[in-house]
C-alpha cells in the first residue's frame, strides 16, 4: 500500500483574486443575504476535451443557489466581474514555503481554471496555479518528499443539498489556499498521520495562516498493487486517518477479488444490462419505500445481474458491501436514497416472499443471478439504475474521488478528474517570479527553531503551548510591536480564554485594542492588573479606545508622588490600600513604598 497526502491550508487577509476580506472560520451568515440562482454546463478543456468528472456532474442537472453576505463577497465571487491580479501577500506565503522545502519554483506562474461543476464555484472552475514542484519537508520524524505546491481559491461553503438543488455561501469563495501534495511515500496509516501533522505544523509557521476548525483539510490518495489511485476528500479529523486508509486498502483488495470472481464466472462479459419497470408487481405492496414511490407517480425499476449471485453481499469493509458500491453510484447519479439488491433480506423492506418471487420470475432470475431494484421518481430512478448497472460491469478498481465519512469510511463522489479539467485563466496575466519577489518572500523559520525561541521566551510549557496556539501570529505581532512576551502570552492564552468562558464575546476585542493595551502598559499609563477589567469593558464598547475606557472608569495608573499622597491619606494600611487601588497602582511600587515608610 502506498498513500500520499494533499494538504489544503487557508490563508487569511484578502481573497486570492479580489479585495474582499477573508471571513472568520466560524463566521455567522447574516440574515439578509443576496440570493443568486444558477445552472452550470460543461465546458471543454484547452485541448478540446470535456473532463469525465465535469460530464458526470452535468448529467445531474442541478440548480445552485448562492447566498452572498455583502461584507465578505463581491461580483468576482459571484462570477459577474473578472478577477483582479493575484493577491501578492498570498503568493509570497506560497513562495516562502516553497523556499523552505527547497522546491523548484516556476519562473512564471500561470493561473489555470480547474473545472469544478458541482456548483461549489459559481464560475464552474477553481483558479489554481502551480508555484513549485519537488522539494522535501524535513521534520523530527524524517523527510517528506513533496510533489507540488499550488495556490488556489477555496470553494463556496455548502449550506444544504437535495437531489435537485444545492445551496452554497459565497463568503468562503475565493479565500486563498496553499495546496501541498506529497509523493505517495507513506506505507502505513500511522506514517501518513505523522506526515500530515508535520506539514500542518510547518504551515502554521507562515504568518498569514488561518486557524480554527475547517481551515486545514487533508485529502488522501491511496493506491495498492492491483488497485487504482483513489482520492479521498473531506477528512476533518486526523485521528480518523488510520481507519480511513485501512478501510480503503481493504475496499480495494476486496474489489480486486470481486472483479476476478466476476471475470471467472463470465465467459463473455455483457457490455450493457437492460432494466425494466416492475411497478405492477408491487401495486398492493406493504413496502413503504416502494408504495411511497408509486403513490407519487414514480417507478420501480429493476434489473438482472447475470451470474452475480452472492457478489452484491460480499463485504468490502465494516458494513460496506459490493451492493453499497453500486448504491453510491445510484445515489450520486440520480439523487435516489439507495437501492435494494437480492443479497439483502427482503423483509427488511417489507417486501413479501410472493412479491420477491414474482420479481424474480419477471426478471427471469435463476439461482446464479442477482437483481437490483430502485423505487423513486422516474427521472431520478432511471439515471440511478443506469449508473449502478454500468458500475457493476467495471471489472477493475475504478479511479475515483471519494468523500470521507465520520466513521473512517468513504463513499463515491465522482470519477477521478484528470488533466482535461484545466484551462488557462485568460483574465489574469502570467506572473513573473523575480529575484526581488523571492527575496521579499523571506525565510520561513522551521518548527524546531521556532519552538526553541518560544520556549526561551516563555519557558518550556508555555512555549510549546504557544507554538500550537491559534493565537501565535497575533502573539508575534504583539511582541514585534513591543509587548512584553510573557504578559502577551498570559493575556491571549489565559485572560481572554477566561473571559470567553464567562460568556463574554471576545471577538469584539480587536487587534488594535490589544495593541493599544500593551502600548499603554509599556508607557506606564495602566497596570497589568487592569488588563482584565479593561478587556471586559472593551468587549462592551468596542468602538471606544482603551485610553478613554481607562479614563472613564478610573483605571489610569497612579504612581510617584500622587501615589505617595494617596498612601498617606489612606493611613498606610497595605491590605486596605491594595484592595482599593490594586487595579491602578503597581503592586511592586506599593510594596516599596510600604517598606520605605515602615
Amino acid at each position, binding site marked *: 500500500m502506498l498513500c500520499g497526502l494533499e494538504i489544503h491550508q487557508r490563508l487569511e487577509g484578502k481573497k486570492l483574486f479580489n479585495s474582499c476580506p477573508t471571513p472568520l472560520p466560524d463566521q455567522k451568515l447574516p440574515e439578509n443575504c443576496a*440570493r*443568486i*440562482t*444558477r*445552472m*452550470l*454546463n*460543461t*465546458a*471543454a*478543456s*484547452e*485541448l478540446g476535451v470535456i473532463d469525465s468528472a*465535469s460530464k458526470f456532474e*452535468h448529467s445531474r442537472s442541478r440548480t445552485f443557489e448562492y447566498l452572498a453576505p455583502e461584507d465578505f463577497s463581491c*461580483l468576482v465571487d*459571484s*462570477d*459577474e*466581474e*473578472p478577477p483582479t491580479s493575484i493577491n501578492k501577500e498570498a503568493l509570497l506565503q506560497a513562495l516562502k514555503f516553497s523556499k523552505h522545502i527547497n*522546491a*523548484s519554483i*516556476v*519562473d*512564471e*506562474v*500561470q493561473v*489555470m*481554471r*480547474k*473545472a469544478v*461543476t458541482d456548483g461549489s464555484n*459559481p*464560475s*464552474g*472552475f477553481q483558479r*489554481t*496555479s*502551480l508555484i513549485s*514542484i*519537488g522539494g522535501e519537508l524535513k521534520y523530527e520524524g524524517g523527510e517528506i518528499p513533496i510533489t*507540488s505546491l*499550488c495556490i488556489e481559491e477555496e470553494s463556496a461553503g455548502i449550506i444544504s443539498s437535495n437531489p435537485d438543488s444545492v445551496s452554497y455561501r459565497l463568503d468562503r469563495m475565493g479565500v486563498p489556499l496553499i495546496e501541498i501534495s506529497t509523493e505517495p511515500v507513506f506505507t502505513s496509516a500511522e506514517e501518513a498521520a505523522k506526515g500530515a501533522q508535520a506539514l500542518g505544523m510547518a504551515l502554521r509557521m507562515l504568518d498569514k495562516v488561518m486557524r480554527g476548525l475547517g481551515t486545514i483539510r487533508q485529502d488522501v490518495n491511496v493506491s495498492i498493487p492491483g488497485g487504482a489511485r483513489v482520492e479521498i476528500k473531506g477528512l476533518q479529523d486526523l485521528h480518523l486517518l488510520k481507519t480511513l486508509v485501512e478501510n480503503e486498502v481493504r475496499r480495494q483488495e476486496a474489489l480486486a477479488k470481486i472483479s476476478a470472481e466476476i471475470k471467472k464466472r463470465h465467459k463473455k462479459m455483457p457490455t450493457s444490462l437492460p432494466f425494466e419497470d416492475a411497478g405492477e408487481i408491487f401495486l398492493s405492496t406493504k413496502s413503504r419505500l416502494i408504495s411511497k414511490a408509486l403513490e407519487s407517480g414514480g417507478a420501480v425499476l429493476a434489473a438482472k445481474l447475470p451470474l452475480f449471485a452472492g457478489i452484491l453481499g460480499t463485504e468490502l469493509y465494516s458494513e460496506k458491501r459490493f451492493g453499497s458500491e453500486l448504491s453510491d453510484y445510484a445515489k450520486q447519479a440520480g439523487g435516489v436514497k439507495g437501492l435494494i439488491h437480492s443479497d439483502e433480506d427482503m423483509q427488511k423492506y417489507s417486501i413479501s416472499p410472493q412479491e420477491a418471487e414474482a420479481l424474480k420470475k419477471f426478471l427471469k432470475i435463476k439461482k446464479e443471478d442477482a437483481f437490483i431494484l430502485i423505487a423513486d421518481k422516474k427521472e431520478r430512478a432511471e439515471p440511478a439504475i443506469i449508473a449502478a448497472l454500468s458500475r457493476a460491469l467495471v471489472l477493475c478498481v475504478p479511479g475515483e474521488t471519494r468523500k470521507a465519512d465520520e466513521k473512517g469510511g468513504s463513499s463515491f463522489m465522482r470519477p477521478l478528474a*484528470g*488533466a*482535461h*479539467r*484545466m*484551462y*488557462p485563466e*485568460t483574465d489574469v*496575466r*502570467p506572473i*513573473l517570479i523575480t529575484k526581488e519577489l523571492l527575496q521579499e518572500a523571506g525565510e520561513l523559520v522551521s518548527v524546531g527553531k521556532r519552538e526553541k525561541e518560544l520556549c526561551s521566551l516563555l519557558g518550556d510549557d508555555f512555549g510549546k503551548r504557544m507554538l500550537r496556539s491559534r493565537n501565535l501570529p497575533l502573539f508575534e505581532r504583539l511582541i514585534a510591536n513591543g509587548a512584553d512576551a510573557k504578559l502577551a502570552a498570559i493575556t491571549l492564552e489565559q485572560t481572554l480564554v477566561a473571559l470567553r468562558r464567562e460568556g463574554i464575546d471576545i471577538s469584539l476585542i480587536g487587534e488594535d485594542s490589544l495593541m493599544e493595551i500593551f502600548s499603554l502598559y509599556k508607557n506606564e499609563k495602566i497596570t497589568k492588573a487592569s488588563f482584565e477589567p479593561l478587556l471586559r469593558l472593551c468587549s462592551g464598547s468596542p468602538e471606544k479606545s482603551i485610553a478613554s475606557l481607562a479614563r472613564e472608569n478610573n483605571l489610569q495608573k497612579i504612581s510617584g508622588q500622587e501615589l505617595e499622597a494617596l498612601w498617606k491619606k489612606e493611613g498606610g494600611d497595605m491590605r486596605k490600600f491594595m484592595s482599593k487601588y490594586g487595579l491602578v497602582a503597581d503592586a511592586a511600587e506599593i510594596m516599596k513604598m510600604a517598606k520605605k515608610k515602615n
Partner: protein
Amino acid sequence: MYSAQIEAQLKKLGIKIGDIISVQKGGQAFEGMLMPRPDAGDTGSLVIKLSTGYNAGVRMEGSKIKKIKDGGASFEKKQAQKNSYFAGEKGSHITLLSTGGTIASRIDYKTGAVDPQIDAKSLVGAYPSLKEFEPIKCNSIFSILSEDMSPLHWEKIAQAIKNEFDGGAQGVVIAHGTDTMGYTAAALSYSLENLPAPVVLTGAQRSPDRASSDAPQNIFCSMAAARANFAQVCICMHASTSDTLNHLHIGTRVRKAHTSGRWAFKSIGTRPLGEVNPKGGEVKLNSSAIARDMKRKINLKNKFSSNVHLAWIYPGINSKTVEKWAEYDGVVLAGTGLGHAPIDAANPNSKASILPALRSLVDSGIPVAMAPQCGEGRVIHGTYSTGTYLANAGIIGNGADWLAETCYVKMCWALGQEKDAKKIKEIMLRPMHGDITSFSLIGEE
C-alpha cells in the same frame, strides 16, 4: 508567441509546439507538452503543460531541454470550416447569424486566434436543449469584437438578415459582442422596415469556455423568442444575475448598463418588450409587440453615414472644441440635465458660451441633435432659458426621450437616407420603433 530567439533555439533542437519535452531546472525536471504562448507575459518563458494539466512557465535560459516524444501534429492548423450549416431537416428554419464577440470566443491554439465559427451541429451538440428549435441554420457573417463595429458593419448585418428572411427563415438570431450591441440593435431597427418576424440579438457576458457562461441560456431564450409572435428587433439577455429569466428589450431603447454583469442590458424609459423563461422557453410579450406576418417583405434601408460625431457635454467645454466638429456631417450632443450645454444664458454671446459655435454649425447645414446624458428622461428645451436658446439655434431634440446612442445611430441613418437638412430634422423627430415615446412612464426608478 515566443521570442524570436526561443523560436530559433527550439527549431535547432527539433522541438515543435505540442511535443512532450523535459526542462531541467535546478534539481527538478518540468516534463510535459510544450504549449503555445499567449501574447501576455514573459516571452522568454516556455509554457509547459504538465501531466496534471497545470501550465508552468519555465525560463529557457540556463535550463536543459530535451525532447521526449513527438506530438506536434495535434496543433497543426485544421482546414477552415464551411460557414453555413443546417441542423435538422431543411425547411422553415430559424437562422443564427454570428458576428463574433464573447459569445463565439474560445482560446484556439490551432489558428492562434479566437475561433469565430459557430456551426449548427456542434452548437446543438453542446447545448442539447436547442434541439427543439431545429431546423436551425447557422451562418457566420464576420468575426469581430463589437467595439470594432462601424456603420458599415450595420449595413452588412441588415443585408444578411434580409437575405435570410428572403430564404425562408422564420426568425433570425444574431450572436453579437455585448459592448455595442445596443447600437447595432438600433441600427437594425431603422434599417429593416416592414419586418415579418423577430430579429433577436444576443451575446454573452461570460465566455462560453466556462461552465457558468450565460451563452447557452441566452441562445436558448433567443431561439425561443425568434419563434414567438412578434416582428421587431430586440435584444435578449439575462434579466438578473440569476439564471432564471431573460428579458427582451426593444432595439432602440436598450443600453448596456454594467461592464461585466449578466444583467447588464436594461430597457431605458420603457418596460421590456417581453420575457422568456429559460425552463421550457415560454415567451411572454407585452402589448407593444407587433404580430409577426411572414407575408411582409422587408424594405431594406441600410445606408448609414460614417461621419457623425457623438459628444458628451461637460463643464469647461469650449467653443474651440465645438468648432472642430465642422468636419462632420452630423453631430449628436449628450447634454446635461434637460439637454443643456454651457451657453451662459445671461450673456449667450460671451466667451464662455458655446452657443455661437453651435449656431454656426447648424447654419452651415450640419444637423445637431441633443439627447440627455442623464440615464433616463426627456430633453426639454422650454423650461430654462438655456434650452430656449438651444432650440432657437436649431438644435434638434426638444421633447425627445431618446437614448444618446440611439440618437447617434438615427442621425447616421437619417444622413444615409436624406441630404436635405429640413428633411433630416423631420426624420430625426419622427418617433420610430419606440425610439421616442409620447409620454413618460410613472414608476420607473
